[in-house]
């Protein structure tokens, strides 16, 4: 028994667990709640309102004259939101299919699983900052997002009511349509890189320039600059598909308020509704991290070295002495910060688009998916193949 226990590599297990806990509980879940907050503030700014800016401790309930303002602005708002969701009445309408009605919100948190495949940092104390560093991580992410549709379909069906059902049906046809263009649009990136391991893809971009910013290392070749055209096309197609996959405006058919009340989660209340809400924002974070990893160099920033203190050759020559001054683990933390900073920027872009563009009609949405994005992505693959054959 003791030899058995000794044969298990505890170090690896503890590292994996620590990484999973760090990413999900310390970074992504707080990021989700503050994305909701950012959504409100940005929408308020766009509509020339103030937005939630004064959440504090409700000491006025205890007889004091004023609420205690400890936080800057309304940064306490997510805490108040969470309390509200937990304390509200959890109402289950009659006639729902109980088991599936409960199962659907649980499945809504599934997007968090695909975070396991995404490299969120270079290395920290010699440990690679990705939870599951497998050689097919791209496919892994797509596998998890492919299963994300179950939550919405089941919610729509189990609610046993018209509008949720229509929302569920819309969402499944939408997600199936856009999954295709999403998968196809990423193939030019994989063709250029020649692999499916996301951590290697980011390392390649750190050494040779981001895919959309080939300014150093091997990025200064004619091949990479010619590839900018197909890569830009695939970036646009991929971003639009991510919008559709995460049910964000202008593609939020499954829950368009003006037509379907609230779509698939009409019958849900309290924490069950909150799970759908959080799942949607978690899917947004996964989508933005994919955009960052594929096109904007993941954790890399040109003048910041990786967790071993190495930067791309060009910057190493200029700043090499400075890099050696600071300990390597500090650079590792810097990389993680850079990654989540980039993700936050993409999230702001998501929010900005939501409050700028009107919603598409459902038939228009299907037409865009099947008639335009799908074909563009297909032609883009041939274009990439032609360029690669021409330059190599």
């Amino acid at each position, binding site marked *: 028994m003791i030899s058995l226990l000794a044969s298990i*590599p505890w170090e690896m297990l503890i590292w994996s667990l620590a990484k999973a806990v760090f990413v999900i509980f310390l970074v992504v879940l707080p990021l989700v709640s503050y994305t909701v907050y950012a959504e409100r503030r940005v929408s308020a700014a766009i509509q020339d309102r103030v937005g939630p800016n004064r959440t504090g401790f409700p000491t006025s309930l205890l007889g004091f004259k004023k609420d205690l303002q400890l936080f800057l602005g309304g940064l306490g708002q997510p805490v108040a939101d969470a309390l509200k969701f937990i304390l509200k009445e959890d109402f289950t309408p009659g006639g729902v299919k109980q088991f599936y009605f409960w199962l659907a919100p649980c499945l809504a948190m599934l997007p968090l699983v695909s975070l396991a495949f995404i490299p969120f940092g270079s290395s920290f104390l010699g440990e690679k900052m990705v939870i599951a560093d497998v*050689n*097919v991580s791209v496919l892994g992410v797509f*596998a998890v997002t492919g299963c994300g*549709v179950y939550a919405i*379909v089941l919610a729509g069906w189990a609610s046993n009511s018209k509008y949720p059902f229509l929302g569920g049906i819309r969402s499944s046809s939408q997600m199936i349509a856009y999954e295709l263009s999403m998968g196809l649009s990423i193939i030019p990136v994989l063709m250029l890189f020649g692999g499916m391991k996301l951590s290697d893809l980011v390392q390649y971009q750190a050494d040779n320039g981001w895919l959309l910013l080939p300014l150093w290392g091997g990025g200064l070749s004619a091949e990479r600059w010619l590839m900018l055209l197909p890569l830009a096309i695939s970036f646009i197609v991929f971003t639009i598909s991510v919008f559709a996959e995460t049910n964000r405006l202008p593609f939020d058919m499954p829950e368009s308020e003006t037509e379907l009340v609230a779509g698939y989660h009409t019958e849900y209340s309290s924490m069950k509704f909150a799970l759908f809400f959080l799942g949607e924002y978690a899917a947004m974070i996964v989508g933005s991290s994919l955009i960052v990893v594929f096109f904007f160099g993941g954790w890399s920033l040109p003048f910041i070295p990786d967790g071993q203190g190495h930067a791309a050759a060009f910057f190493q020559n200029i700043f090499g002495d400075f890099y050696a001054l600071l300990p390597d683990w500090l650079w590792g933390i810097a990389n993680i910060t850079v990654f989540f900073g980039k993700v936050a920027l993409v999230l702001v872009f998501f929010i900005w688009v939501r409050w700028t563009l009107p919603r598409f009609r459902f038939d228009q949405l299907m037409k865009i998916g099947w008639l335009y994005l799908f074909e563009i992505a297909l032609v883009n693959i041939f274009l990439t193949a032609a360029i690669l054959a021409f330059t190599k």
Partner: protein
Amino acid sequence: MEKLATQSRIRRIRRIRRIRRILTRGFCQIRNPQSAIRNFVNPLLFWFFAAMMLAFGVSVVLNRNPVASALSLVVSFLCLAALYVGLDAYFIGAIQVIVYAGAVMVLFLFIIMLLDLGAEQRRKFNKVALVGGSAVALGFAAQLVGVLGKFPMGNKPFPELKLPPGESLNDLQHVGETLFSAHTLPFQVIGVLILVATIGVIVISKRELK
């Protein structure tokens, strides 16, 4: 007395060895030199996921509710994918999830939900069909046990496959290279076949051809 005690100890050791052999059997080990965890955890995970897969496979048949059946099939597929991953075949595992759990079963579920659900649940058991069906299934199972019991390869453990040190199994590359070099023609034929099937579906689903 002492002799008896030794004998019982020997017997116990043999029993433990037998159990360990049974546990590790049925699992071909493609060992990555870096992961010692495989020796112990892999068989455990194998049996866990195999049992889950079978249990949910049975529940596909036994459930009267079509949605429950479809979802059981999804779980069964996911467990199969987990078995592939246990064999270091990440590519096949991911494809299993994408194609079956992510695409095929979603369409299944979609169609089941649009159809009338009550009919299947209300239907009564047909006793003759029940008896006849189980008789056929039992006969088939008995045959299977008979044939597999005589199969000599089942008694030998699978030879261990070792990768050269420092190399990981890049199944993605292997699959791609084999597909596009040794099996190019079948691959293209399958492509044409799928195209024909797609066109066929469009033609059939169009009510009137213009």
